[in-house]
């Protein structure tokens, strides 16, 4: 694998039916860039699908006039996936743990939790409309 890889950026329309294609594209690229097969197939796919769904539904509120920007940066040791929507953002610190007994039977609220479990590091911008997920390469 090249130390200095291809950097890809996707402009994704605000539509849930393109999430799969976007995830496919990024997962293949990450696999080619040295992410382990299991991490590319599972950790990255799940985390990116959740981040995209949140960006489309909560961030852009399904407004077809808005888009979601995805950017993947590969360095020798890390893969960083940025997902930015055009919404108002939110405060991730206010999202409760969905695995505590009182919340276990809630229908929603597992997306962000799964992302945090599946990638090595999660960061947000101050406004809260851009998430950055870091995965260690093979």
């Amino acid at each position, binding site marked *: 694998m090249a130390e200095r890889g291809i950097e890809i950026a996707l402009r994704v329309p605000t539509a*849930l*039916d393109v999430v*799969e294609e976007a995830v496919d594209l990024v997962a293949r690229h990450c696999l080619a860039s040295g992410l382990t097969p299991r991490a590319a*197939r*599972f950790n990255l*796919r*799940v985390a990116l*699908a*959740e981040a995209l*769904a949140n960006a489309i*539904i909560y961030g852009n509120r399904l407004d077809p006039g808005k888009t979601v920007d995805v950017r993947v940066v590969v360095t020798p040791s890390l893969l960083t996936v940025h997902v930015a929507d055009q919404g108002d953002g939110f405060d991730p610190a206010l999202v409760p743990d*969905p*695995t505590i007994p009182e919340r*276990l*039977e*809630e*229908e*929603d*609220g*597992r*997306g962000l*939790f*799964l992302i945090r*479990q*599946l990638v090595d590091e999660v960061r947000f911008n101050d406004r809260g409309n851009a998430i950055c997920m870091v995965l260690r390469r093979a």
Partner: protein
Amino acid sequence: MSFTLRKDPRGVVVIGVDGQLIVGNRHELKQKVTEALDAGERKVLVDFTNTGYIDSSGLGALVSLSKKLRDAGGELRLAGLNEDLRTLFELTKLDTLFNIGDTTEQALASF
């Protein structure tokens, strides 16, 4: 992204998830199970043998359907999860909430 439905002779409605269970189709699954419930069914098995992916919305749909069936004196069970899908249930601790069979046959036999 579709669901198959069959009634097992042992009195269990088996719903197969073909492809994915995600935010875009979870309502369809909810509708299918609700219809079965309205028709008097109380035992539902969701079969993930042909499922590639479940997102957090899909997990949530299963949680709410499970509660609904339990409230009606029934039960929702799961089977056929591959390693990745099983990991999703473990990470979210939903493996403690569901009766999960390795295979459909095993789940049916013990229902």
